[in-house]
């Protein structure tokens, strides 16, 4: 077996193990209702499986590194996979301290979604462009990812807190907002589902697009609902596009990206709808009883603790190491590039979070919302800034 396929298999194994571990953690919360904060057998098994999965993911990482000759954190697939890996690591660390199986039930599937999401982007190995050829690449990226992974745990704990504490007896603004957050997670699942399905059947539609007097090709791997502007469809027997991407969207890829977003909403909404039909309740309401066994205090503390631990790590990787590298590469340690600005925004946000907690007593629910918003900012930086806002750091 070649290194490349070893690497891919190792990642797949890790992925499956994380899902298996989730069930054990699920078993742990059912097993004994009184001693929920103690170690339980199922919880320990879950942890062991998670660690094995993590080791398998390290195997993926190392073999891919050897294969490509550079740290595999240089494109969207590689970085996002690595982010998923640091989320798992952060979970292992926090779990060993607090021992709440509940955390695993939520953290593992969410981290797994991130890894699945990563695999939707091109997994081909590519050589490293000149600007990334520096040992600061792995140093900077791994620290940022670790910081974000720890902050992810605060999001998970915050989300669990909200699900547990928000009144679900009647429809209110708060539980509607919560449901929206959950719906947002379903959009990721929708994206993963459609991409996987149409990749499996090798769906392809090709457009010829006119840009500044030149003809370029645009490849779609999802049926075109929105076509690129000023384009002609070349492929036969594919869906006829419904409309063209509006002209305020720029870039050669605008049409394809818009199309992907539409499909994600479409599929995500259907999957969400089906889940609703089966559960016959808002998802938040359905999940609420599951969390009765965990003390809200504990969730609040995990949420705060992980911000307290993650904030310095993020600062070090996302601002300080980033600045040192930018200084070496471009001669300017700070350039107000959108990606940099969004790292700063994330930093400002968590700084505000910490101060609010200190002096205004924003504990519990308010903190929970802040943890959710903070992580939304991180995801925004990963997805929207990379794929939409033009940036030096653009991967795509």
């Amino acid at each position, binding site marked *: 077996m070649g290194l490349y396929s070893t690497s891919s298999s190792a990642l797949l194994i890790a992925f499956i193990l994380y899902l298996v571990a989730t069930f054990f953690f699920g078993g742990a919360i059912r097993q004994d209702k009184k001693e929920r904060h103690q170690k339980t057998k199922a919880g320990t098994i879950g942890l062991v499986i998670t660690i094995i999965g993590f080791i398998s993911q390290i195997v993926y990482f190392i073999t891919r590194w050897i294969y490509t000759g550079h740290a595999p954190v240089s494109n969207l697939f590689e970085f996002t996979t690595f982010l998923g890996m640091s989320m798992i690591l952060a979970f292992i660390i926090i779990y060993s301290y607090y021992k709440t199986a509940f955390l695993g039930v939520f953290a593992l599937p969410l981290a797994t979604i991130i890894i699945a999401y990563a695999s939707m982007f091109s997994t081909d190995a590519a050589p490293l462009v000149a600007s990334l050829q520096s040992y600061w690449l792995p140093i900077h990226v791994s620290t940022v990812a670790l910081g974000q992974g720890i902050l992810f745990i605060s999001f998970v704990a915050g989300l669990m807190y909200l699900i547990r504490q928000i009144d679900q007896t009647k429809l209110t603004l708060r539980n509607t907002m919560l449901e929206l957050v959950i719906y947002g997670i379903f959009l990721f699942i929708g994206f993963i589902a459609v991409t996987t399905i149409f990749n499996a059947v090798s769906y392809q539609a090709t457009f010829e697009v006119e840009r500044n007097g030149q003809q370029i090709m645009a490849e779609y791997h999802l049926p075109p609902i929105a076509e690129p502007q000023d384009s002609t469809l070349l492929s036969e027997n594919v869906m006829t596009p419904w409309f063209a991407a509006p002209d305020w969207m720029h870039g050669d890829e605008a049409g394809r990206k818009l199309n992907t977003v539409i499909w994600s909403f479409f599929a995500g909404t259907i999957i969400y709808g089906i889940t609703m039909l089966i559960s016959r309740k808002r998802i938040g309401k359905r999940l609420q009883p599951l969390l009765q066994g965990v*003390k809200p205090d504990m969730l609040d*503390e995990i949420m705060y603790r992980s911000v307290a631990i993650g904030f310095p790590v993020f600062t070090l990787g996302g601002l300080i190491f980033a600045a040192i590298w930018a200084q070496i590469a471009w*001669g300017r340690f700070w350039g107000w590039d959108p990606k940099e600005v969004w790292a700063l925004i994330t930093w400002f946000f968590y700084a505000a979070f910490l101060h609010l907690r200190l002096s205004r007593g924003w504990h519990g629910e308010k903190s929970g919302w802040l943890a959710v918003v903070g992580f939304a900012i991180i995801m925004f930086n990963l997805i929207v800034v990379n794929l939409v806002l033009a940036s030096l750091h653009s991967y795509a």
Partner: protein
Amino acid sequence: MNKIKCECGHINPEGTVLCEACGKPVEGNQHIDGNDDKKLLNMRYDGSARRSQTYQKSIVDKIWSFFSSVKVGVWLIVLALIASIFGTIFPQEQFIPQDAVSRDPAIFYEDRYGILGLMYYQLGFHHMYSSFWFITLLALIGISLVICSLDRFVPLYRALRNQRAKKHKKFLSRQRLYSESTNIHDNDIDKLVASLKNSRYKITEENGYILAEKGRFSRWGPYVNHIGLIIILLAGILRTTPIMFSEEYMWVREGEQRVIPGTNNQYYIENQEFILETHDQEDERFQGGSLEEEIATNFQTDVIIYEAENPDVVGAEPELEPILEYSIQMNNPAKFDKYTLYQQGYQLNEFKNMSFYIHDADDEAGESLGTFTIDLTNPESVYETDSGFRVELTNYYPDYVMTEEGTPVSETDFPRNPAFVVTVYPPDSDEGEVSFLGIGMNIDATGENQYKVAIDDVEFRDVSGITVSSDRTLPFFFVGAMIFMIGVIQGMYWQHRRVWINKQKDNSLLVAAHTNKNWHGIKRDIEKAVEGTNVTMVKDQQELDE
């Protein structure tokens, strides 16, 4: 000042909420920390007297209170955050793409983003981060940092220095973690203390009253990190001065030797070669379907840096001493003296020189009657061939384009598409013939020329774009960032934990505990300590409502 004397004998400054020594709530001051109708005491600054909370009369007091308020601090941070977001909606001025209709912001934003773009430009959001009010916002954050830190650091320091092991019962019972036990044997207390000692608590004992404390230094974390931030902001101000920071951009051609701008003629650079490498298309590892374009894997300029021996002697040809031979690459700048050179841009295949030959217009074979070579960066005005032709360079367009009106102009000064108007004087003649020459064109202005000029050969070379920067503020930023990191780690990874073990006169034992964060941790410490004793485990009096 109206000092407050507590019943324990300690004299507290005006505005104290909890006695620095015994912790007894000072009557009449409880509203300051909002303790009035709360079961638990607010322990944020140990109830010490802060200037901002005590004096609020004069204008100075008001300004002081304003800037020391965390609420104001958070607002400032949130405003900076929102402004930052707005700055990323459309690209900032410096990121207007090369292929834009115009790089003039007045045109670009409206052209590309319509009415919203126009508003963005008119509101000045296109240079958000250098705008007056964004910088003011950062300055206000700086002021706020200084004042809030001073306001709290001094009193907190006092309170922690003056604290006693013996605490008032009102103080103990209103801590978040608290328990009362009766009939406790001294052995149990010893066990408790020994176990806490084991967990690295420092034990202070005063007449049987015990305080176990650890991680106090972490309380100074926020002040340390704020100092780091202040240093960073100051470094930002320093950077606006030319002595501390300067930056120049230069183009150097292959083979060219030139003075380095911004170095007062002290240093010269010679570009020996520019190298652009792309990845090996045959490399099997990278044969995935999605990789179509070439990926540039190396930009490199091989340079020699010279130091001029006599830079100040006007008019004298400088004597150059080579001091550094270096391959500047991306991520690998050259450094000498206080300057750093970065590989920033390049221009491939700029024309270096062109040689021409003259032939008879009627001669199909085009036999050469004489040749000459034009150096495109240093053209001469007249060339003479060995055979006696004289060629006058009447006009030179390094980067030729034809305007809409039909006049030839040069777009830039770089020889990217050279074109010439030459006048050819045959041997021993004063009658010149005018020709217009360029890449792929040879126009005879009159149509009656006897001689034709044709391109014989062209030589190319690459041009390297290099940034020269001299930044003496870097150490300040670095030190500020390190101090910030030390401060946050100090404050976040350690916690200040205190356990008070006070045996009362009636022989009951009161145990109370406080930490500034991580209550789970301190509970575990106490749980371990009371194990195997009769001491009641402390109860968390503030669990969030179920």
